[in-house]
């Protein structure tokens, strides 16, 4: 759902002509997820008969793309898809394994259409192995790859990730893989098939705890693991998320060494507790983290998170308010200065903010030319201008429900 759309979004942002093929009768999930202007619903609380052009998540994922509809269950629909592939140089899919095969759209066949095609297959588990048919979405990938387990307080259930983190990360790895395959083709003239498993991408993101297992035989099922917000390698203290003024507002602070601590003490005005002998040296602070955390929380609870961040950063201490999306969009001067979020109008939704690119290239500009296509919005352009079907043929296909 998210992976395939986000992976090609990066290419679309940077000028590729991305044609998204959709099914009118089985809507893409982000079209159905109830993220609507002026109407608060939870993910999972879908409208039974959703307006496919109203969904904010689809708008976010499919900007700068062309959108067409094809019924792939109809032979004429599959023929149209084949014609589109003939006019393309890259094919991407993230269906359940077996779906493309059922349509006959294998890599071997695609190469007969476009000899140097890049065929990118994005799935949860990859296209081989005993679990390749398993069903997954972000939280399942995070659980199976170990990412959930390494996240949480010791002695409790894992807290994991409050999002489909791996939808985004797997999408980014798929974007990178597509770009790598395209560069390989530019250099060698040769196409290729790509198999990205989100689970495997997740395992590569576990960090040094994984090597602690494979090199040292040190299991992570042990007392004191995971580490919550504490940092063990290297040891840092105070290192945590502390309460701030207001409802559920928090401040993250990371103090790595004695120099950091001196700056922290000066920034908070050197209250008496900072002179406590339990906190005298780095080793002392690490050894007395429970007491130290309580003392820091006692200070932070009276502070505005953003003001405290400004004070600590001015003193050279790594600290940040735990920002929410409203903070990012309305308060964060860095996001504003760098233009990270941008606005585009949409014919049904109206103007909306978008999450832009965190990469600024000095010679290659992003081309942010449209919000997401309405369902089938580009059928005439793509089937007419690109494939050369005349108006009566397009009308016939539309009447039959093929497009």
């Amino acid at each position, binding site marked *: 759902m998210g992976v395939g759309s986000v992976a090609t979004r990066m290419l679309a942002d940077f000028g590729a002509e991305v044609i998204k093929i959709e099914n009118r009768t089985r809507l893409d999930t982000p079209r159905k997820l109830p993220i609507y202007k002026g109407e608060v619903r939870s993910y999972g609380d879908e409208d039974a008969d959703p307006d496919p052009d109203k969904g904010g998540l689809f708008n976010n994922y499919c900007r700068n793309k062309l959108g067409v509809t094809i019924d792939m269950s109809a032979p004429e629909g599959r023929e149209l898809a084949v014609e589109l592939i003939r006019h393309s140089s890259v094919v991407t899919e993230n269906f359940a394994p077996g779906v493309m095969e059922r349509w006959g759209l294998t890599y071997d066949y695609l190469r007969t259409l476009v000899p140097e095609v890049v065929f990118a297959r994005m799935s949860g588990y990859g296209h081989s192995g005993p679990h390749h048919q398993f069903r997954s979405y972000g939280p399942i990938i995070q659980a199976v790859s170990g990412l959930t387990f390494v996240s949480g307080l010791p002695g409790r259930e894992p807290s994991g990730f409050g999002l489909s983190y791996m939808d985004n*990360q797997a999408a980014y790895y798929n974007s990178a893989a597509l770009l790598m395959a395209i560069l390989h083709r530019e250099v060698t003239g040769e196409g290729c098939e790509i198999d990205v498993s989100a689970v495997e991408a997740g395992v590569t993101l576990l960090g040094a705890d994984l090597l*602690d297992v494979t090199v040292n035989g040190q299991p992570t099922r042990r007392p004191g693991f995971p580490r919550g917000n504490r940092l063990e390698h290297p040891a840092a203290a105070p290192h945590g998320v502390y309460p701030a003024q207001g409802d559920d507002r928090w401040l993250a602070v990371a103090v790595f060494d004695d120099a950091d601590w001196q700056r922290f003490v000066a920034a908070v005005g050197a209250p008496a507790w900072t002179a406590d002998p339990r906190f005298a040296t780095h080793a002392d602070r690490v050894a007395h983290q429970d007491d130290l955390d309580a003392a820091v929380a006692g200070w932070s609870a009276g502070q505005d998170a953003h003001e405290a961040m400004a004070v600590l950063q001015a003193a050279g201490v790594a600290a940040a308010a735990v*920002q929410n999306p409203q903070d990012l969009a309305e308060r964060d001067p860095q996001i504003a200065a760098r233009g*990270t979020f941008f606005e585009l109008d949409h014919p049904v939704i109206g103007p909306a903010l978008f999450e832009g690119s965190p990469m600024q*290239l000095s010679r290659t500009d992003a081309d942010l030319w449209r919000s997401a296509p309405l369902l089938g919005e580009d059928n005439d352009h793509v089937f007419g201008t690109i494939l050369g079907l005349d108006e009566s043929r397009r009308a016939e296909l539309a009447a039959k429900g093929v497009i």
Partner: protein
Amino acid sequence: MTGHSPAFASLRVVELADDPGGELAGKLLADLGADVVKIEPPAGVASRTAGPFADGHADDPDASLEFWTYNTSKRSVVLDDTAAGREVRDELIAGADVLLSTATPRQLAAAGLDLDALLAAHPALIVVSVTPFGLTGPWAEHRSSDLVGLAAGGLLNSCGYDDHAIPPIRPGGNQAYMLAASFAHCGLMLALIARQRSGHGQLVDVSMHESVAVSGELANPYWFYPKALVQRQTARHAQPVPTQPASFLCGDGRWVYFALILSDPRAWAATVAWMDDHGLAADLVEERYLELELRQREFGHVQELLEVFFLMQDSGTAYREGQRRGLPIGPMQAPEDLLEDEHLKAREFFMPVALPTDERRTALFPGSPYRFDAFAAAPTRPPRLGEHTAPVLAELAARRAVQHA
């Protein structure tokens, strides 16, 4: 086994990276076959002292697993921060396709590096800068860390427990840096493709803060559209309102993730049939539960029955049997469980890599996050501190000799 792609094997990369974001970006290139020369100070980069360390090698800069994780397949060159050292550094950059840097503007100035001047002097050079906040803007010199990056970028606001007396909890694995590395890698690929066509290099300025800020999945759209703020919930999606727990403890003491979407009639039928096969569906088999409103009203009761159901089986069985029935369910595997995962084994995902501390020994490292039929990506041994100083200096001398011949 296919070999490396000439598109990457021919690349010369100079890495001046001192955090996991820049280091992973370099590793991804090195694993593709690029010659990544990592320049380090005499004491080594920070990850060499971070730990954990390979057993029996405490505080050995060649034995830090944090370094090994993000620095496979590279070469290590130690240079002093002296005029002579900088001269060698600049000569290496002059011969490189890519300079990878994690320095902020102030750190660049202190190191005597002017990125604009480098790009002007070497028109085909691509500079990938991956910094906590980007090279411009009011926070460009702000200090960061993984925890601070996740907090400032908003992702942390979605992570933690249902109990909001507990602060947001940082996910493991340096994920703020991992996100920055993903964009650094993609940005570099975009720049390499552009250079292939134009011959021109350029600056790719990646901000970790923005990488995190655009990767919160539903959180920003929930603000951009309905103006709702999501609330963190244990191990499941942060949402505008609380949802049912999705973490279930199994009989073997391990957790599975299973989010039963009550509004999905197929998932409901499959779940009840599964529970009924174990004689644990109780009254859920009754026809009245086919009505969504009743399921929603009774979700506390449904939840209790599910808790009992999962406690009666082990997590591996629940995983395989649930998936066989078409239900998305997954065990919360610990890193050590992954080595026994039959699927990862069949795909030969983990790869033996020789250890810097003892080249006769290998340990399993995670393999490549992507697979291509036309070319390979795989990790090889991380370098010891300064292991390649002499050969790299000799290569420079040889290049100089050719230029003067």
